[in-house]
């Protein structure tokens, strides 16, 4: 009798926890939709701010949408170019438990835990050192630094659990480590896509990294050395306005951010399924 009660108690507890998680998500979506949907006009997504935009006059946040997309895609691509070789090195090239692999894993764990404002401050210092202004380039580099440990950790998790025998199969056919790497990448496609998603979500939503490095401007950048607006900062600046109209635009910007992330997630899930049909 006591054990049955215990079972029911814990079952109830778990259901409550699960519901509260979904509840929070629904509340967030509800808040940004109810406050932002009214301001989510065609103008908002297709125009850059006009004079007096920040006191409620016409225009949109296309500058921030484009800026965020540039930085996010740039950072994810650069991040992958650096983190894929790192992951291959520690999983294929290095001997098991070599000190370099262990150190790399430890380093990426520590970097993963650093708050993004630290990356922002670091990027800012580097920028000053090289005499750079706030720019698309500086913002992208800083966000790249932020996403590298995310990519390394997330991909390392999936590469580590690939059975050793798959690699051994390639080696025993006379394959090189590079050929083994290519097979492992194939096997890990879903995990790599999940890593890209994580990094994309983190990069597009991070305000602290771009605050000092990318700056903010009302125009769309046309070269790497120009400053650029980003969605998180568009939310931040507009939400701190006393004018309700402008505040609602901040929620519209949040809604746009959420929609971009959702669209990317679903597309990635779709391709992940298609690309992994041969997976073991």
């Amino acid at each position, binding site marked *: 009798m006591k054990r049955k009660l215990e079972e029911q108690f814990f079952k109830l507890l778990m259901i409550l926890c699960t519901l509260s998680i979904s509840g929070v998500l629904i509340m967030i979506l509800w808040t940004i939709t109810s406050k932002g949907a009214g301001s989510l006009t065609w103008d908002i997504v297709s125009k850059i701010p006009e004079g007096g935009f920040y006191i409620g006059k016409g225009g949109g946040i296309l500058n921030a949408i484009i800026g965020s997309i540039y930085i996010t895609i740039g950072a994810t691509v650069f991040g992958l170019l650096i983190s894929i070789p790192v992951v291959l090195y520690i999983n294929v090239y290095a*001997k*098991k*438990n*070599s000190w370099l692999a262990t150190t790399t894993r430890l380093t990426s764990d520590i970097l993963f835990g650093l708050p993004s404002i630290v990356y922002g401050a670091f990027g800012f210092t580097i920028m000053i050192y090289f005499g750079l202004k706030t720019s698309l380039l500086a913002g992208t580099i800083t966000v790249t630094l932020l996403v590298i440990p995310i990519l390394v950790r997330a991909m390392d998790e999936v590469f580590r659990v690939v*059975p050793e*025998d*798959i690699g*051994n*199969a*390639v*080696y*025993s*056919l*006379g*394959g*090189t480590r590079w*050929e083994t790497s290519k*097979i492992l990448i*194939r*096997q890990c496609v879903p995990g790599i896509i999940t890593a890209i998603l994580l990094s994309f979500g983190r990069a597009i939503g991070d305000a602290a990294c771009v605050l000092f490095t990318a700056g903010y401007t009302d125009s769309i950048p046309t070269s790497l050395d120009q400053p650029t607006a980003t969605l998180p900062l568009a939310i931040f600046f507009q939400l701190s306005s006393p004018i309700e109209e402008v505040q609602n635009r901040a929620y519209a910007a949040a809604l746009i951010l959420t929609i971009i992330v959702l669209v990317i997630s679903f597309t990635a899930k779709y391709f992940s399924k298609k690309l992994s*049909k*041969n*997976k*073991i």
Partner: protein
Amino acid sequence: MTTEKPHISVKNLNVHIDGNHILKNISIDIPDKKVTSFIGPSGCGKTTLLKTFNRLLDRNGNVEITGQVLVDGVDLYSPDTEVTSIRKKMGLLSQRPFPLPMNIYDNVAYGARIHGQRDKKELDKIVEHYLRGVSLWDEVKDRLKDPATRLSIGQQQRLCLARGLAVEPEIILGDEPTSALDPISTQHIEELFLKLKDKYTLVLVTHILRQARRVSDYIVFIYMGEIIEFGTTEEVLLNPKEKLTKDYVKGYIS
């Protein structure tokens, strides 16, 4: 010992893993184009010995290997030996089949492709030839583009054998290759081994005495990292000289 021409010669091989002495002073000549089985209780070092032959063992850290393993007179552990060309000489069949994450056709064609074969017609020929060689062709010829994972586990093991044979090795190493298979699939694989020994040298690790008896010409009994007895199947299984071998064959130790 045997009078056969050796294909693999092991001389004074010692292996330490994480400071443990796993293989102790192993010296043995594996005869050419015969089936040689390693038997012995779990943890005796038989798989480790097999893995020293294709140098998969030293991929792990904390492994110390001394001594010589000669294949066709070339020392595998000499510093100027090229590892990939050695591995190409030896097909490996592992405990469970691990097809590559690609379709059936590409699995067999993979080895030929990485060794430079690009011609589509040649690859078609190779794939058909080796799939027929492992009696899998008729079962899969209409679905060569299906993922290899859709095959049953017994079919997968035969696919892995075909994949290994397609790089034209001289030696086939089997690490308990039937331990995950059902009796019918096991029988398939064993029949293939008997067919293959005309062309290849086979080295098997097995813990099934009946299997060792069915397929092997020679048997090596290993215990606690040492070779206790090496001889023809009849000698070792029916007339063991050593007491340990006798006990193992009778099932007193396992």
